[in-house]
């Protein structure tokens, strides 16, 4: 057991930023908006989380800052794509480039400084239970938030009226508009939620995963989150499976390498991608259901006047 615990802890750490960013993007895409700027929102969240923590001494303030930083980026994206109706793909890519550059500038003063790590929330009694307590109930607040978000998003999307409205807006914005729902308002909220989650994912990187600020530290995780949303066919529970599978395989392949298993390291590094794609494609093999899950208006701009 004792050998397994640290491995599981590492897997949770590797999976949480992907899960956080992806669950936000899932809501954004469900409302019909494709925001390819996840990487950019994440990295700005990472630098702001680190900066505010370093200046205030409180990693919790840092978490809040990373969330608002992600939302600010998302607001900009929302204004451009929803109000000015710019191309969502191009704007999303621009947001990523902007985020990478902006974060480098903002973070210049914090290079080479060790950060403060977000503390583990110790739950009296529960955290000491062997295994379950030491692995699952000895986490920092962001891990709990990420798991709670999956449950909340599932419930919200499929069991509440507001969730139905989001899906309606994403599937057929003209009809939703005709029924009297404000498409732009719904999409703004969805985009902001996506930004907040991406920001938190970035904060997780600079406050828990590796408590430091270095330029480009997201290293493509935003793109993995985007891919996870598609391969999970916009379903929250599949997303949870996908994120944890990706995290697990990427950690276990290091263990396999360290144990001297003779597979080429290039193949090992590709394994998380391969395994996640294969598993999620198998889960989503029913094409009719997958098509029904795909937001039909994804990426299409909406103008109330037309």
């Amino acid at each position, binding site marked *: 057991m004792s050998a397994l615990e640290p491995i599981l802890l590492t897997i949770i750490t590797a999976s949480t930023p992907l899960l956080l960013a992806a669950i936000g993007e899932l809501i954004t895409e469900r409302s019909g908006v494709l925001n390819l700027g996840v990487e950019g929102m994440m990295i700005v969240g990472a630098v702001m989380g680190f900066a505010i923590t370093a200046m205030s001494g409180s990693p919790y303030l840092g978490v809040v800052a990373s969330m608002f930083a992600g939302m600010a980026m998302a607001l900009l994206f929302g204004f451009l794509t929803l109000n000015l109706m710019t191309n969502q793909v191009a704007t999303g890519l621009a947001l990523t480039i902007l985020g990478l550059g902006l974060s480098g500038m903002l973070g*210049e003063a914090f*290079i080479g*400084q060790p950060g403060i790590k977000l503390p583990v929330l110790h739950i009296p009694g529960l955290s000491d239970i062997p295994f379950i307590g030491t692995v699952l109930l000895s986490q920092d607040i962001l891990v709990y938030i990420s798991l709670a978000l999956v449950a909340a998003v599932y419930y919200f999307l499929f069991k509440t009226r507001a969730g139905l409205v989001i899906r309606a807006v994403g599937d057929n914005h003209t009809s939703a508009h005709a029924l009297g729902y404000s498409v732009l308002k719904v999409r703004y909220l969805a985009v902001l939620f996506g930004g907040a989650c991406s920001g938190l994912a970035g904060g997780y990187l600079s406050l828990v995963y590796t408590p430091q600020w270095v330029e480009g530290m997201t290293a493509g*995780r935003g793109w993995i989150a985007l891919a996870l949303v598609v391969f999970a066919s916009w379903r929250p529970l599949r997303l949870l499976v996908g994120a944890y599978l990706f995290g697990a395989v990427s950690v276990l392949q*290091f263990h396999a390498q360290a144990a001297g298993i003779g597979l080429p390291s290039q193949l090992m590094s590709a394994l998380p991608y391969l395994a996640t794609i294969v598993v999620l494609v198998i889960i989503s093999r029913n094409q009719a259901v997958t098509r029904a899950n795909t937001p039909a208006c994804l990426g299409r701009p909406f103008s109330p006047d037309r």
Partner: protein
Amino acid sequence: MRKLSKFLVTAALALGLGAGSSVADEALKVGFVYVGPVSDHGYSYQHDLARKAVEAHFGDKVETTFIENVPGGADAERAVERLARSGHDLIFSTSFGFMNPTLKVAKRFPKVKFEHATGFKRAKNMATYNGRFYEARYVMGQISAKASETGTAGYIGAYPIPEVVRGMNAFMLGAQSVNPEFKVKVVWVNSWYDPGREADAAKALVDQGVDVILQHTDSPAPLQIAQERGVLAFAQASDNIKFAETSQASALLNDWTPYYIERVQALLDGTWEPTDTWGGIDTGMVKLAPIRNVSDEVKEAAEATIAKLESGEFEPFTGPIYKQDGTLFLEEGVTITDEQLLGMNFFVKGFDAALPN
């Protein structure tokens, strides 16, 4: 000014324009191309420190420009070409992956001088330079074998290229000189720079029982994990003691300053030649950060080895050396040639894992 010129070069790159030098000034223009951000606190950061030192040393006589975050391949070619086209006289292209792109540009701009780090292709106007980093790795191997209780170290590599493999082999030879049974677990992350993956790799190694961590990747993440888990670690490219106050045993440091100043001076004097420079601990191009967090005995032994390397009387790769499969690589007393070092694509005896092709 530097920021401005950097901005201009970046803008020129973005617009696809050659920034022709409109002002005929007499300052020598020296350009630098980096693979990472100057703020990586590692490899590119060290090159940039040397660039700043060049500016400070020559004052008005030299003007420098840098382009950071350049990936290998076509992007590198564009970056080097922009510098060549915008009137730079000397261009330092600082990553192995820039070798072929730099050579291509060098052929098109015969009047511009090029300097490529860590590669092996030269031309009439293209010199190469590199550090014998493996010398420092040998010392680290000795320290590790003396300090380790489990007799096992973990080594995080970026890619299985000769530059990295050489370091691993030197480390192993250093460790075996103390403990012939010493084990090294190798993990490849297939990236020079991904703090998260580097941290995951370090955790996996510690979970498998190593109590020393080596890295040939660029972020301080493995050091932080070492500090967290209470094992020894060696930093790469910069002294990162702040990240691991009670864990960092030493750090491999690259000091490019003397070389850069020497080369710029040579161009100013008109004595520049396309040389092949390979500097080790003896020339000061490779250094070790102060040795900390080990016993005095370990420290003294390491310093004795460093002194031998400084005087040039000792070569880590001296036979008998056997390859992993047991075949003899170097006969008793024979020292390795630079060609053999450059093409090193095998593990020495003692590694358990196979080297990926």
